């Protein structure tokens, strides 16, 4: 085997490593974005649940008050 092709192959292999490293960087970033989305999801669900709870409480309170002030007929 002559020298130039060998060198070329070695360069190609190096190029391959570089390319794969690049792909890896992108993959890792996508993974990070995924992780972010997941924790964002969790965090939002947690907050929305709290908000929902508050709204439900208010709704129930309104229902109760509505029942208190009406005399059998609904306010609508």
């Amino acid at each position: 085997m002559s020298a130039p092709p060998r060198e070329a192959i070695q360069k190609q292999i190096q190029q391959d490593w570089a390319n794969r490293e690049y792909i890896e960087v992108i993959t890792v970033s996508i993974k990070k974005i995924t992780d972010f989305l997941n924790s964002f999801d969790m965090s939002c669900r947690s907050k929305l649940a709290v908000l929902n709870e508050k709204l439900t409480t208010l709704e129930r309170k309104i229902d109760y008050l509505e029942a208190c002030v009406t005399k059998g007929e609904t306010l609508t």
Partner: protein
Amino acid sequence: MSATDRVSLTDALSNVDVLDELPLPDEQPCIEAQPCSVVYQANFDTNFEDRNGFVTGIAKYIEEATVHASLNELLDEGQEHAVMLYTWRCCSRAIPQPKSNEQPNRVEIYEKTVEVLAPEVNKLLNFMYFQRKAIERFSQEVKRLCHTEKRKDFVSEAYLLTLGKFINMFAVLDELKNMKSSVKNDYSTYRRAAQFLKVMSDSQTLQESQNLSMFLATQNKIRDTVKENLEKINGYEELLADVVNICVHMFETKMYLTPSEKHMLVKVMGFGLFLMDSELCNINKLDQKKKLRLDRIDRIFKNLEVVPLFGDMQIAPFNYIKRSKHFDPSKWPLSNSNTPSPQADLMVHLPQIREDHVKYISELARYSNEVTTTYKESGSDTENRETAELALRGLQLLSEWTSVVTELYSWKLLHPTDHHQNKECPAEAEEYERATRYNYTEEEKFALIEVIAMIKGLQVLMARMETVFTDAIRRNIYAELQDFVQVNLREPLRKAIKNKKDLIRSIIMSVRETCADWQRGVEPLQDPALKGKKDPDNGFAIKVPRRNVGPSSTQLYMVRTMLESLIADKSGGKRTLRKDIDGQYLVLIDQFHKTSFYWGYLLNFSESLQNCCDLSQLWYREFYLEMTMGRRINKCTVRHHHNEECNDLVTMEKRIQFPIDMSMPWILTDHILKTKEPSMMEYVLYPLDLYNDSALYALTIFRKQFLYDEVEAEVNLCFDQFVYKLSEQIFAYYKQLAASIFLDKRFRVECAALGAYLLPYPRANRYETLLKQRHVQLLGRSIDLNKLITQRINADMQKSLDLAISKFEAGDITGVMELEGLLEVNRLCHKLLSKWLALDDFDSMFREANHNVLAPYGRITLHVFWELNYDFLPNYVYNAATNRFTKYKGHIVFTPTVHRDKPPQMSHHYLWGTKPLNMAYTTQYAQYSGFVGLHHFHAMCKLLGYQGIAVVMEELLKIVKSLVQGNLLQFTKTLMEAMPKVCKLPRYDYGSPGVLSYYHAQLNDIVQYPDARTELFHNFREFGNTILFCLLMEQALSQEEVCDLLQAAPFQNILPRPYCKEGEKPETKQKRLESKYSALQIVPNIEKLGTAKQAMISREGDLLTRERLCCGLSVFEVVLNRLRSFLDDPVWVGPPPANGVMNVDECTEFHRLWSALQFVYCIPVGETEYTVEELFGEGLHWAGCTMIVLLGQQRRFEALDFCYHILRVQRVDMKDQVVKGISLKRMVDRIRRFQVLNSQIFAILNKFLKSGENDEMSVEHVRCFPPPLHPSLTPQQHYHAPEHLRQAMII
């Protein structure tokens, strides 16, 4: 940003990095398995597709890679067929069969049958062809490798392992085919239909159908064919021995990662040995020749008696050996013995698992803290290596624990219990139930839960650190690989070049060229090693670069296989290559080869992590479903000696799935709920996660909609159950806690002292963590557990209040005490729960339960009134000495017996929490049930409130009005007739017996009047009780109000007068106090901070509180005035006195009648008779006195009363004798007592009546009569005390 804008890579990457810095708090503690909505797994496995890129590799291994690629494809296909067989559900059972040949629609039925089954049958055909092809291919490979020349050459580890996988695949497919009778049934149904319709006309199709039919019908067909084919190959046993040996080697050195790989190795050993043992070959002899090590395999088979085959199918690998031709039990001492396998006992593994878990978790926590607190671009080589090792160790631990769980489960499936071993297992329990539900002890279930929790918990922790781990893993692998290739291999290379070992040189050069990533892009040409020369004295520096990437899968395979060939025991030639390499480098290469085995797993970290924690198979039960044939057999369940007849009673129940009670995930979840074990409570979501595993498996591996649907259906059912049971026990727990807190401490101490029964506080349970869960991931849904529990507990709370009131409604007025207690406990329970749950306002809930939201009066008010009216007023007897009412105990029935609703049936947690607590409280409140006293009035005050009290009194007044103007008036009119017209006060000279006999004679008609002592007095008692009720309510109310005022005082700037030393000014001290507590004062604060409207409201509220007692509003006074207005009939006062001043002897006014009645009830009764006090209590006197006072006849009554007169006379002469059967002394005693009582009553009444009047005003009403002047008297009437004079005038 518009779509056309370009973002540079650096910007994009820094954008991603910034994401990390966003705080995303999640406020719930993580007690569930990895919750993620999005899963990202990059797969870089090319299955050797890129092999041609590595032209510098040794050609032989590139060829081998090609073979590998196609073998892997076959293995994948085999997996698909296995899934097809395993998930096969019988179709023919659902297809209608023509009952006779005459049936008109049979052609249609057959046509439809063929149409429906054709695609399924096609799968079976493909399966048959596939197994044929796979066996052929396998035999070819074996044949090629068994060629005499080839035998001398080295066969790579990867190659042998792939052959092992084939052997495993054949074993699995064969067992699946044997097991699935429904496949055979479906095919014969299809065939019958097809033959009828003559679909298979050509001979080829017919032959094919015949073949398939034979293939399906022949048991062990695949195994036998493989064996048959192999036996034709010369020396195949040696190759198989290599395969078995590599499996033993890998098993013993733990060269596997996932549990399924581990089990695969064991299965290959068993099935491999079975295939080897034949006419031509005896494995025992191979053992003797040391070509096999049966003793080692024996130990492995004992430690792992049962391995999962596929899904819920299990296999005991030793059974293959037993079935082989030359089975020699003496060679298998361990496997053949009856001692239990360690696999069957989870408890022996548990301490080690716990220890490993704690150790690993702490290490991980330390590392995780380090990573999160310190920022580093990339760690040093050592750090990266340590992190990668940590990751690998974690994966191995997870895999080990998962193995323990699955192996126990497998063993249990193969060793079902029965009613002899487990007393709880009914004799008629079905097979699957005996394998799951009754097959685990309590301890085992807890241990299983714990291990599952450890697996799932650690999985979460490791997944969170995935990016950190993978970063370190890639850097570490890159560094180790490049260091090894560029630096470590230099020496062997130098030596090979120097010694002209061309083969070694070319292999090493190949390795270097396949994967070296040179600093300058090319090999340093001036490297002396390349020329076989020594390095210069100062060394030859090679700078190895660093990257954040691992080798590709093919690259890794090439490097490992080529290096393996260097150190293998075999090579193509006579001499192994090992001999030409120095020992130290052999060790290095060997070490590298071993370490790099795990690189593939580490580089696919995410996938490996998931595979190591996969417990999906705990749910699948296709094997057992197949066995039950879609039916449940109900045997005769009558308890008797079963006989022939019982067999006729066997009934079939159609069923396509097992109930949740037999399902492992639910068994474990339910176990925690049932035992309420506090240490396990936080694990309760982990067993539920098994459904996630199973569902994921159904979607991604089985790819069967119906399986997913079944998992989903079960989850729906289980989760409902879960929430139901959990909320019930949470509510019960908090109720019990509240009731325990509320229980009197001294009562508790005394109970303990007596040892009667202990009432411990409930064991602290960790429901809080569960209550904080707001997003639980289950089958891709996010569930707000807190919300679901809140809904249920809200309802429970409501029901609890409702039942408390219902209980009150079912009892008499004394129940008001227990009602108040119950409401207080519920209030406390509500308060404790409200810390975690957003429950409705307690007061609104109470009003709703009390039906008091829309209606002005609640159930409590109505029942109190009802009880007052029907039970309290007519049946209770008041006694001022004890200040209580007691129930009338006499025999005379005045009112019909009271009928009440039956008390509602309710479980303990709706009442006081538990049975012992219910008993304790019932005993306590029983103390209040015999009487109505101060406590009850306080309770009523609190429960009724102002509005309720007003309503009750209003209604009572109405009753009194009808009483006064009805019965009483009627009686009065009648009795007035019977009264003597004139009844004088007899002179002292007659003596007391004379006076008594005078009155007795005068009042004889009244004394003899039959209804006086019964009906009339009863009516007066009702009247009196009403008055007393109002009075006592007023007293209780006042006390409550005083408490209110005192409590409100600090907020209203009412401070106690400060203590002042001499010389101190009270004003300044007062000022200082006021400013000190100014923050408490409501009105000024709200005026300062609130809106005008709020300020106004607070001012008014303040005013209301202040004024409540100050202006001396009195309910009782109003009541009295109202009563006065009822007495409007002239009969009460009679005609005006004839003398224009007052009646003295005439009996026209009410007080005269009362005097007569007083005479009646003062007559002492005999021993056996009930006295008036016992019968009617002091209500009677209250009624009489009140009427007298209200009619303004008090003075005349006191002056002219008959009994008082007897008393006065008797006081003087002190005589005692029996007059007309009446003992004078006893009579006088009674009179004295009642006189005192009457004066007390008058005093109280006058206090209330006079409170609003000024003295001057009353003076105005006085008519002044000049004293009659007697000429014999001096003008000075010194013996008349002026106040006496005035008293006389007021009368």
